[in-house]
């Protein structure tokens, strides 16, 4: 899934930035420093916005394109922060054959975002995930810790409306 540039304004704190600078200093000059630094950066900021990747690129003295190449290659890295409400929609085999893609389409329509991204107000983030172990309830969607099962596309609006 191609990454989507985040629409949420960057709001890293000086403390977070200082922590990242320390990690960069620790790894600078070592071969293969990009991965551990990006992992640490994601731990510190929760995601890898452009501002953070520029900091990594300048700190390690490597091109931003190289940093972004790594960040966009590995599924473990996310370019978007998580929303106040994190939606995970299962696209595993059971959910898929029970119509999860239609439900996903309905969520996308409603929120105007694609999987891997976040609404501009930071309220909802959307991810498509693999099996969450509730195949009996397929198709399944989780919003934070709430589980919704046996979903149909027409239920999506009412469910999302419950979250303020």
């Amino acid at each position, binding site marked *: *899934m*191609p*990454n989507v*540039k985040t629409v949420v304004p960057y709001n890293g704190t000086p403390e977070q*930035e200082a922590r990242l600078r320390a990690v960069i200093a620790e790894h600078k000059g070592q071969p293969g420093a990009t991965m551990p630094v990006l992992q640490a950066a994601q731990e510190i900021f929760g995601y890898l916005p*452009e*501002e953070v*990747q*520029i*900091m990594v690129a*300048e700190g390690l003295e*490597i*091109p*931003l*394109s*190289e*940093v*972004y*190449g790594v960040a*966009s*290659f*590995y599924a473990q890295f996310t*370019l978007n922060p998580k929303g106040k409400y994190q939606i995970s929609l299962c696209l595993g085999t059971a959910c898929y054959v029970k119509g999860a893609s239609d439900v996903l389409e309905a969520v996308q329509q409603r929120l105007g975002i694609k999987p891997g991204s976040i609404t501009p107000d930071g309220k909802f983030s959307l991810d498509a995930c693999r099996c969450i172990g509730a195949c009996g309830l397929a198709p399944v969607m989780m919003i934070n810790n709430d589980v919704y099962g046996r979903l149909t596309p027409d239920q999506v609006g009412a469910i999302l409306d419950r979250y303020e």
Partner: protein
Amino acid sequence: MDKKMVTLKINDISVTVPEGTTVLEAARSAGIKIPSLCYLKDINEIGACRICVVEVKGAKSLVASCVYPVSEGMEVRTNTERVRHSRQLTLELILSNHRMDCLTCARNAHCELRELAAELGIDAVRYANDELLPRIEDSAPHLVRDNSKCVLCRRCVSVCRATQEVGVIGCNDRGFATHIGCAFDRDLSEVDCVSCGQCIVACPTGALSEKDDTGKVWAALNDPTKHVVVGPAPSVRVTLGECFKMPIGTNVEGKMVTALRRLGFDKVFDVNNAADFTIMEEGTEFLQRLKEGGALPMITSCSPGWIRYCEQHHPDMLPNLSTCKSPQQMFGALVKSYYAEKAGIDPKDIVVVSVMPCTAKKYEVQREEQRMANGCMPVDISITTRELSRMIQRSGILFDHLPDGQFDPMLGLSTGAAVIFGASGGVMEAALRTVVEILTGGEMKPLEFHEVRGMKGIKEAEYQLAGRTVRVCAASGLHNAKAVLDGVKNGTMQYDFIEFMACPGGCINGGGQPIQPADVRSFTDVPALRAAALYKQDEGMPIRKSHENPVVQAVYKDYLGEPGSHKAHELLHCTYVPQKRYRTENKF
């Protein structure tokens, strides 16, 4: 020190090569060609495409010969049924994701991928994807990228990162979604691309091409109200012939002039003439800085790729840049002032077209600080050597049949000093020829400054001139420029005068020059052959020093005054400003 030699057998032929040689190179020395796609010697040696696979006795699977080093007693087979089958299948899979609009593609008959398909005998693409749509990115002034034709060989990425140390493109995403792009898939115009075009000449397919401005030139030529003036850069005369199947390093100056005239240009001038003005201005500036203690080292400003790199990566060095406009811009400025006045033509009715070895020149002509006091931009359209060759072809001009022509003299007469501008070290040498005479008062013998010639990335020399040591450096390829600047900043390198060219080897190897396929580039020193033709022309010229050019002398006498005069400054100089590397506000 002699390298240890290794003997191996390739297709039962015994080959002895230095240790560390790759199987592909060893085979080549034995007269065996191993087809390849992603391989571009010294630039991209990553074994990514698997076209160059061979059988090595004892190895579990086929190996990529472009990265596989030879070893003693090794037995290699390059042409077995298994190898041929594997290459065909690989290429078919590459083609399955390649938009095959070959007939209308910018690369058309010059495409390495197409050539490879013919060579490997691909007679059908079983998995062709006919639904691929163009994926055009044309935000920058110099380049068009169509990722639907990209084979992900990564040559462009390597040349951008390693040779140019700019690194604005990379591989984004993964798996089937993998594509070449800028970080965050920003447009090329939004990142710190220097427009050098080295990615274009490295690309084996039509995925990268220069932005074609020939349409604008045709429109100007067809407009009876416009007076259209053309000037080719020094290096174009020794490369244009390659587009017409002439050997690399053929000087076609005379034919080029005739072709330009037959295309319908009202005046065929020479940017070499402007290069002589550049030397007068730059030489004067250098002498002034030496005498009055200006910012040293002084750094040349002819290469717009280098200028942009400096503005973005080394803004602290901007005071060191010569304030001279590049020869292209001086050419345009002189046409739209001196020539316009002499010929009695309103500069607004003149269209200046430059033929350049360079894609960054397309960017340079748009730069606002170049604008003249009369409101005109010095140059209206900048086309590359390749674009000129296409115009000549389209006009039905049989290039190799053309008689030699002469430039229009008013701004067409030039010297040997100007013609060598096209090779790395040439601007330095040309400047020294003039500066030395002014400093010492006498003629310098010999006239050649061999220390700054050649294809080495960084060349340095010291000259004793009128009781002082002048230390000079000529570097080409932006990674070498970076190395020199790092050295200058940390004090390990000390110079008075530096020439930087963005492209390795200088303009003769520019991003707008004829594209030689990897198969030629990997085994022939293309830039050296082209440069040799320039030095040969210089040697045979009656006048070899810019200050002895009678046109230059006349223009200063009648029009500009002295080199470095107020009027010369107004027309021929400009200043550069720092530019941001990233478009996002970077708070760190």
